């Protein structure tokens, strides 16, 4: 049995560590390219969402590399979007096209269920292994978040090459460390390294939070490398839906988070699945932090995000923050995407300078503005 894990952005570093911990052989998938997309699109149903198509393409490339069991990291117990059905639908499609594959659902907050699914092929896995694997994977996702933040800060304050070097170095180190304690120490060393670079001048830069569907935000190839684009436009970008939420979705412990939930539920009363409620919460959080704009990126025909897209205009008016909705799919062109982002950045830049000129109407002070 050779396994391949679903891959979102840099998540392979975490899933590989999980595979090593429980002792299975994981096939490395490439990062999605044009070939991935065209292969996925050719076999997918027309209205399935874009991530479905790209992931199907990735699985086919995984088959080329010898994988026959696919692991779908999804917590079925908390998230009711299409993601929970992806695996089976993809299996049906692959079976129809003559590939003999199996799908395992990896319920990230239930180690017992994960154990159950892996026991099917590998009998000597224990709950200890699985729990350790999940902890290490979660730890790595947290560290990767630090790497991306560091990359952004260095990119803005120093220059691109330095940022690339920083990212490359720490990704390699995180990938090579497979113990909970060592990862802990690594995190501290990384913070020290990050502290050696000058801080980005956040006060003078425009700040934009990118919110929306987790896959589209965290997979650079799909979102036209939006974070770097924003940095190039002299914008301080913030990721609203981070990869670690694959683990923490549904667990809202922080008091700040509870208060946000209350506000978010005025717009969206229930957790309708996917990352819809998280997107609404992020939108409110960054509006209250005084960000200058929100970029809502989601795949065409993504049900939870379309609901959010319907709700956001009213929310934007209440919290006085401009929002740009960017649906993406295989038809999205690079130039059109960039033009819209550039125009949006220009608009909020003008808006901010106008507000600075009239100080009694300070931009996005977190209170309900003149919209409501």
């Amino acid at each position, binding site marked *: 049995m050779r396994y391949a894990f679903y891959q979102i952005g840099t998540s392979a570093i975490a899933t590989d560590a999980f595979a090593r911990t429980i002792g299975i052989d994981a096939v490395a998938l490439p990062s999605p390219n044009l070939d991935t997309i065209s292969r996925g699109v050719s076999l997918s149903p027309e*209205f399935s969402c874009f991530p479905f198509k790209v992931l199907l393409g990735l699985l086919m490339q995984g088959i080329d590399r010898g994988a026959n069991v696919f692991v779908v990291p999804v917590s079925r117990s908390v998230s009711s979007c299409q993601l929970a*059905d992806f695996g089976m639908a993809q299996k049906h499609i692959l079976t129809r096209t003559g590939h003999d594959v199996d799908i395992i659902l990896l319920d990230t907050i239930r180690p017992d269920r994960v154990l159950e699914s892996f026991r099917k092929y590998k009998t000597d896995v224990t709950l200890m292994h699985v729990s350790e694997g999940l902890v290490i994977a979660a730890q790595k996702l947290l560290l990767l978040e630090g790497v991306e933040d560091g990359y952004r800060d260095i990119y803005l304050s120093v220059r691109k090459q330095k940022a690339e070097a920083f990212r490359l170095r720490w990704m390699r180190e995180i990938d090579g460390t497979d113990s909970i304690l060592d990862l802990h120490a690594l995190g501290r060393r990384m913070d020290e390294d990050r502290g050696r670079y000058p801080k980005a001048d956040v006060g003078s830069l425009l700040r934009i939070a990118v919110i929306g569907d987790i896959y589209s935000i965290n997979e650079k190839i799909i979102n036209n490398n939006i974070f770097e684009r924003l940095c190039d436009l002299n914008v301080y970008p913030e990721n609203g839906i981070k990869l670690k939420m694959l683990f923490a979705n549904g667990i809202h412990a922080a008091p700040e988070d509870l208060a946000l939930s209350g506000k978010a539920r005025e717009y*969206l009363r229930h957790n309708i699945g996917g990352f819809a409620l998280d997107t609404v919460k992020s939108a409110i959080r960054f509006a209250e932090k005084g960000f200058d704009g929100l970029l809502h990126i989601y795949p*065409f025909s993504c*049900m939870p995000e379309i609901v959010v897209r319907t709700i956001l*205009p009213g929310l934007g008016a209440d919290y006085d923050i401009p929002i740009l909705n960017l649906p993406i799919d295989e038809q999205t062109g690079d130039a059109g995407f960039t033009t819209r982002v550039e125009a949006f950045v220009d608009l909020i830049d003008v808006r901010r300078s106008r507000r600075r000129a009239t100080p009694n109407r300070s931009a996005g002070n977190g209170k309900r503005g003149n919209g409501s």
Partner: protein
Amino acid sequence: MGIPVPVLPKHPGLRPGRPETAQDRTIRIGIPRALFYYIYFPFWETFFTELGAEVVVSDPTTRKILEDGLNGSSNELCLPIKLLHGHIVNLKDRCDFVFLPYIISTQKGSYYCPKLIAAPDIAKAGIRGLSLMSADVDIENFYSSLYSSLKEVASKLTTNPVRIYAAYRKAMARQAVFEGYVQGGTLFNDALSRMRGKALAKNVAGARPARGGPVIAVIGHTYLFNDAYISFDLIGKLRKMGGRIVTSDTLSAGLVNKTLSTLESRTHWSLGNRVIGSAIHYSRRNDVDGIIYITPFGCSPDSLIKEYIDANLGRKKPMLLLTVDEHSGDAGVVTRLEAFFDMIARTAPRAG
């Protein structure tokens, strides 16, 4: 924000503690003729009528309603949700509250589509200041029960728990009668007429007719094929062309579950499971000649449900996938149906 609070002076009878009198104007509750109307209407109608309210239903879909729906909602939403918006516009000035429940799950382990769950939120975003009345229906959630959320809704009508409970029981009974009719092979509109004691039209298709034209199974979401306007009167057209109709509704829940249990896995969509279960059940039956699967443009659950169906079809028989949206034309549908009937005639010469 939140659910708008009713303006009290307009409804003196609403004030808690005040005895109800005959002079109080009855409260009008509007139910849009869309989405869950086609599944739970008898329940809500009975419940509200029993509590002394007047139930108003929006008009059957017309060009105007559809256009209102298209103009007022985001263009990425699917047709049934856009239509819901149109029906609310049609309704909102004729009633005190528009009733729109948050229906999350009505069976263990399966949910409704996110857009359906959030339908009241979408309505609120589309029409600001709408007087909306809502209940949470969530069987999956241990802490909420249908009765407790009903009590919340009913508090606008009465504070007497005995009356609420009696209305709830009666509504459950009516719903059971309705479901009995529908699952016994009566189509939605006929079932409603039957509940009102009206005589049925002659050409109603039974589930297992003895002889006649081909038996067509219409599969899809009940709120799509039962709406004559947006489905281009699919059912009426099929009847005119001599088809006898069974639908994904005219099948008992037990039979659907039995069919689903023979499959490797099911989806976690309530409506989707019924579509899959009925499609596969009909495909295995010898007395069904063809299957028409009607789906709204851009329905993401349906696109994956089609994969489940394709992977598990019993016998090969003609299957037509009919995607409809606001731009579809009547002529296109007729042509495809005619071709479909020709295909049935060619592929399955009936023995009897």
